[in-house]
């Protein structure tokens, strides 16, 4: 399409109503919500952070040849138990998401409480796991990258557990209705991301040095 020669237009255009949107829903579940896309954006940015940190880990492995550097690998039992529990948490997480989609307040409350308790348990386990890494951040480059990876993930774990607890409290107040259900779905999807980021991290930090 082309336009005529440039002429300044100084009056606003008249409106012609061709559509009415008064009956549109006031919020939507899952991908329909704009907030869901925002959460995915943060997952993408943080996900690339994990990928780069994994890259840095293997770069250091490549440079050094010997791995782990002058320390024994981290404790396998706590971390495996931690990983199994993480994977197990996906089930109540899935249910919390499912019943949020159905706006079933009673069931959502139940699974949110379970998720909060699980989250606190996982944080406690994480503390134990860190104590059993068998290295410190200032020992050598191996210790530095292990602490960076585990620390970065712990930050995610902590954020999402706090978020889950706040949402749980919110759902027991008078605000526990309407689009809060969509917020819970988003929080559940973020939890899935936190678990998904942990799996390669577990393999790299806890299994790889034993190969």
């Amino acid at each position: 399409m082309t336009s005529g020669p440039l002429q300044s237009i100084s009056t606003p255009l008249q409106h012609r109503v061709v559509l009415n949107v008064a009956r549109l829903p006031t919020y939507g579940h899952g991908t329909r919500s704009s907030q869901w896309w925002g959460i995915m954006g943060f997952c993408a940015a943080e996900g690339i952070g994990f990928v780069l940190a994994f890259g840095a880990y293997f770069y250091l492995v490549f440079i050094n040849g010997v791995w782990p550097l002058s320390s024994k690998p981290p404790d396998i039992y706590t971390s495996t138990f931690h990983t199994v529990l993480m994977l197990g948490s996906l089930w109540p997480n899935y249910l919390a998401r499912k019943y949020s989609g159905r706006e079933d307040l009673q069931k959502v409350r139940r699974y949110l409480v379970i998720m909060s308790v699980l989250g606190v348990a996982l944080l406690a386990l994480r503390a134990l796991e860190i104590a059993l890494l068998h290295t410190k951040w200032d020992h050598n480059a191996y210790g530095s990258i292990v602490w960076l990876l585990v620390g970065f993930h712990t930050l995610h774990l902590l954020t999402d557990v706090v978020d889950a607890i706040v949402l749980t409290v919110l759902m027991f107040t008078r605000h526990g209705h309407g689009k809060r259900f969509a917020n819970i779905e988003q929080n559940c999807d973020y939890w899935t991301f936190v678990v998904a980021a942990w799996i390669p991290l577990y393999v790299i930090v806890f299994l790889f040095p034993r190969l």
Partner: protein
Amino acid sequence: MTRALAPHDAALDAVPEPSRLLTGRPSGQPGMKSEADAPPDPRELRDDQVDGPELTARLATTWGTTKGIIGALSTVDHKIIGRRYIITAFVFLFLGGLSAIAMRMQLARSESGLIGPDLYNQLFTMHGITMMFLFGVPIGEAFAVFLLPLMLGTRNIAFARLNAYSYYVYVFGGAMIWIAFMLNIGPDVGWFAYPPLSGPEFSPGKRTDFWAQMITFTEVAAIAVAIQIVVTVFKFRAPGMTLDRIPLFVWAELVNAFIIIFALPAVVTASVMLIMDRLVGTHFFNPAEGGDVLLYQHLFWFFGHPEVYIIFIPATGWVSAIVVTFARRQAFGYIPLVLSMIATGFLSFGLWVHHMFTTGLPQLGASFFTASSMLIAIPNGIQIFCWIATLWDGRPVFRTPLLFVMGFFFIFVAGGLSGIMLASVPIDAQVHDTMFVVAHFHYVLIGGNVFPLLGAIYYWFPKFTGRMMSERLGKWHFWLAFIGFNITFFPMHISGLMGMPRRVYTYLPEMGWGNLNLISTLGALMLFGSFVVFLVNVIVSARRGALAGPNPWDAGTLEWAAASPPLPQNFDRIPVVTNREPLWAHRETLPVAAGLSVENREVIVSTVTAGRADLKETSPEPSIWPFLAAIATTITFVGSIFTPWAIVWGGVPTMITLLGWFWPKADKESET
């Protein structure tokens, strides 16, 4: 061109059936009742019940910002924050420019004693980080914050409170580094702060720590705004704006936002590792304990090369918008233009190693990155050809914005040519770290960003302020800038080939670089003069320029349907889009959607590809919490330079402010 313009095919722009503009899906799953599907409250006034000045006035109240300092700090209006963002980025551009002038004065003659080596090191570092992190990345996002909601036909940016927070974090980070510089603790290790120079052994003191935390501030802000941009483009488009009707400027900002989301975490990773090496004794870059300094370079340039495109891609959006409006026809090759931008975005992640050609690479690696560096010239070339074709087939009107685009073509292509030379390893090894490289990247960065930016300011100034800028001063500005730029930077190609290194504070007269450097300095003064003309033009025009009216250029995109400057609600009713240039398709009346609330902040949320109206979500009310959260964040980041425990005790106020931000209010629902 004298050819008659093609007649307007009205049938193509007919408004489709409502079923193609609405999804009509309820929120609840089959067999359940969702609160979202409740019928609208009949007591709530909607925009199909009022019209004219009353509608305008009521919406302006609903979407307005309250007066006073608290109101100003609580605002979530994307136009107010966008305007602040643009002005702040320009302040940093001027500060960066002044530091460059100081360096040019020092280099004007050999063995000059004007500036000593320590201050000179701080100056080139401040110049680099200011231009890259405090101007280059934010300016593209700043334009997006102001313009995207207007161009997409919505009322605010997605996550408007996060937008306010991002702006404050950016300002505080920029202020921190410049205050540090004024206290003689400005960073002095170059904008990329390579270890081992930047490590604990060779850079004791706090200078480099300020650099690292400046990165944290600006990247947190930039990533958050990038996510807002993506969500605004994906979900906040006016009904009917399918993917192939998105304005080219918006595509550019979308691609740019994706590059930011994927590139910036790399520099954050690098700077976090560096500050940890410096403050808590990690060994990422310490070869004695298994670390490696080249790891830093890889991480840095995985960000650093896409950064070039973060600076360039928004400029392609400005060029596209200006070229279309002043060529008086739609863009030639819309699809190739969009695909080129996306291809550039992908390819930009595949050539970081060409910054490291002299670090000793495997042969295959060097060849691969040479090839990919040359490859990226192809999509950029396609864009240039599409713009030229648009102008060729149009009836170009040579106003100041288009002049700057012409300057862009000339300078950017010249910079691209020296870029092809540098992509080749043998040449790169010869001229690495010489003034030749300085000449090259100033041609691509000033040519590729600053010239289109100045054109964009002339072009959108009437939308920002309601007044036109002076054409006469604009032409003076352009020619001074264009000639001054070339006098400054062209001689650097030659001084570089003669062997003059970068980042030296002085040189001996026997080197024979004196005349070329004097010419460069004279050119820099001319470039400085052009910016003085620009500043005068901006200030005088903002007060006394001719009144613009909504659409002074007779442009086609939706921002020109709003008032100049736009009212808080942007549009009294949300437009319905049937064409890439909606205002050229509908010259008499604008098709609109009605039914949104007049009393509450409602926006239409649409589907990602087809742009069908799907939901009417609420948009956040103003709030002081994002400002308080930004202050808490600042205390945490600055404190962490002095003790790592700041992360812990600074986390408490940060957490409290975030809770205040997100906790729902009594009557109205709060939002991000």
